[in-house]
């Protein structure tokens, strides 16, 4: 008798599973419909981020995600819902990120992902405007006295797996006809530990990552970043092929952040400027005081205002998360506005 009840209990547990299945079916809905409709019905944007990279995405003590990539997700959520908290962050690894996007688990992947031909064409994704122009660099202890990456013959190199980094590295050393020993590591935190203990001579990843990593060392001055940047790594958010409306929305949200910096619209003054039409028609169109660009995206008039108000314009996001005032201390460099000699250039809002 007692065994029988146990059996029943076990059977009942199986239903929880059925129930959960039904429930998540209700919540997730079908991926085939238009993404924006899905997002609106769900009331949240699902945004894929890294499981943790200093300055780009990491949860704080309260579980609130913060970082440069995170701010892009928040801006998109704010543009759609007027509320930057209406976003759900899905941590993805280098291995699982593309599947998560392809399968519809996330609507948008903002995970310092390099824009490449094969990812765009073969893996069937659509890259948004580059939000960070990066390149692969090398960090090495000062004590080794190396000044150029060409002197690295025979060096042991720590790399993160599942990235374009390992391919760039192979190409670089092959092109220069020098040998190296790769040590593949799964996460940035582990790679850092290996590098500091001297298990590898060189640590290579995107230059931004190197700077971010170096900033947290006990003695940052003991390490140098070599001048060679061996690859182009335009890091950009990406969405699935085939839903151009959604792609447009994300693309122009990123552009809005970039344009806002160019025109001097900040999180401080955006509400004020949006209150009434100003003298610059471009700003007026951006902030919805003239024309209705938002409606063309299927959003409200104040979509860009909300996106900018969430975490500020591109420059503000940069400064707050990875800029020179933060421990990471990255200079704008290529990521300055085109007016300052950088590559950040938004097409006109008209």
């Amino acid at each position, binding site marked *: *008798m*007692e*065994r*029988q*009840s*146990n*059996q*029943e*209990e*076990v*059977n*009942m*547990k*199986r*239903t*929880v*599973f*059925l*129930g*959960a*299945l*039904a*429930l*998540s*079916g209700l919540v*997730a*809905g*079908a*991926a*085939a419909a238009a993404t924006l409709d899905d997002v609106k019905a769900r009331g949240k944007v699902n945004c894929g981020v890294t*499981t*943790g990279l*200093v*300055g780009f*995405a*990491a*949860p*704080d*003590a309260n*579980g609130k995600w*913060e970082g440069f990539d995170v701010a892009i997700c928040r801006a998109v959520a704010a543009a759609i819902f007027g509320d930057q908290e209406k976003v*759900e*962050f*899905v*941590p993805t*690894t280098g*291995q*699982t990120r593309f*599947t*998560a996007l392809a*399968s519809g*688990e996330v609507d948008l992947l903002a995970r310092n992902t390099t824009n490449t031909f094969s990812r765009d064409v073969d893996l069937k994704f659509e890259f948004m405007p580059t939000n960070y122009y990066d390149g692969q660099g090398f960090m090495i202890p000062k004590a080794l006295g190396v000044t150029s990456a060409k002197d690295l013959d025979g060096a042991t190199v720590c790399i993160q797996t599942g990235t374009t980094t390992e391919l760039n590295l192979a190409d670089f050393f092959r092109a220069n006809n020098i040998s190296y020993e790769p040590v593949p590591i799964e*996460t940035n*935190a582990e790679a*850092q530990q290996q590098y500091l203990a001297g298990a590898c001579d060189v640590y290579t990843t995107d230059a931004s990552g190197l700077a971010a*990593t170096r*900033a*947290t060392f006990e003695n940052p001055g003991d390490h140098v970043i070599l001048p060679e940047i061996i690859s182009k790594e335009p890091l950009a958010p990406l969405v699935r092929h085939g839903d151009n409306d959604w792609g447009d929305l994300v693309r122009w949200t990123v552009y809005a952040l970039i344009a806002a910096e160019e025109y001097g619209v900040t999180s401080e003054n955006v509400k004020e400027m949006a209150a009434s039409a100003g003298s610059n028609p471009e700003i007026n169109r951006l902030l919805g005081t003239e024309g209705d660009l938002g409606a063309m995206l299927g959003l409200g008039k104040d979509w860009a205002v909300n996106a900018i108000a969430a975490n500020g314009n591109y420059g503000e996001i940069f400064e707050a998360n990875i800029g020179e005032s*933060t*421990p990471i201390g990255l200079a704008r460099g290529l990521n300055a506005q085109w007016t300052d000699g950088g590559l950040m250039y938004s097409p006109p809002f008209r």
Partner: protein
Amino acid sequence: MSDTHAQTAAYVRESMIGQSAPPTGQSGAIRWMRENLFSGVTNTILTLVSIYVIWVIVSHLFPWFANSIWRADSLTQCREIRDATVGADAPAACFAVIVDRWQQLVFGFYPQDKYWRPVLALVVFLAAIAPILFQSLPRKALWFSAAAPFLLFFLLWGGSVWLPVCVALGFVIGAVAYRLLVASAGTLTATLAAIVLPLLYWLFLAGPLDAALTAVAPVGLEYVQSKDFGGFTLSFIIGVAGIALSLPLGILLALGRQSHLFIIKMISVGFIEVIRGVPLIVWLFTASLLLNYFLPPGTNFDLMLRVIIMVTLFSAAYIAEVVRGGLAALPKGQYEGADSLGLDYWQSMRLVILPQALKISIPGIVNTFIGLFKDTTLVVFIGLLDPIGLTNAIRASTDWNGVYWELFIFVGLMFFIACFSMGRYSLFLEKKLQREHR
């Protein structure tokens, strides 16, 4: 004898000497040490080597622990405190990271004002599992065990209270259908009805009923998404759900493997061997990368559920082997006795064989659970934030970048406490079963 002595000897002691203490080398700690530690050359060497090993470990770890810093906001601050108090070169643990982030390690991103829900869920779980594990408790308590899964689901995920109620109703329908039909229409029809009716109910009625009830009486807790689960809560949920859901499938597979029906046997053996032959990590990658390929286009549900499905299939194969061991351990006379009573296959299994076989399988099932609980750490590789995944996330914040051992020691200790106590229980159970068999 004493009489003769009394006449021949000049002096006879009349009272016994009081017992004197054994020589110092033969008593107390020294004797114990001689017998236990230094009884021979080999033993002496072994003892000395062991003591040296212990010394090396302790002398390295002790200062690190003794200097540990418990209150700081970041690793940099930890280092400043260390430099100020014990000097820059001294080893010092920075356990401040645990103080700062222990809630995250335990509960993941579960909303902080709702921590009482997982805690209560743990209490409910322990109360529900107790009557199954300890036979001395009243059998009526098993009804609570049967209801517990629905309660646990409701507590953890929240949402409308009517969803679990409506799902549970399906089982009631099945049971009632069986009871009503078994007398009039025979076992076969009754069993069929008990399977088909609830299925129909779940497919067509449960959804609308839930919606209607929720509209009429919106009772419930705030819904918490699977993505917010993390840390030990996540490990525990995956482990418990995996074992509990896999039991029925595991028992069926074990019976299938023992079956005389060739095709059934082949299917069971094939399933068990394929699942057991491939590492869990490959199955988890399958869950994360491939499961969407195998389901109808457009189906999409969250990663945690996909992992639970995969873990359920995985542990079902292991449970099947444990139960098969239990079935094989029963004397043949039990099977023959059940047959001679005229019971059919399912009756003999249900009433005679399985109750005994499952009872002796419980230690094995607990061990399988310990293994599965430890293996849940592998979900870190597909991006779920279990305790180890969270250590990565914590180290990615600017405050704690560079912290290493403290987090791993904490996680290891928590796992040790949980697994060790479960292992002790399983050992106790094995001993008890052995006594009963004698």
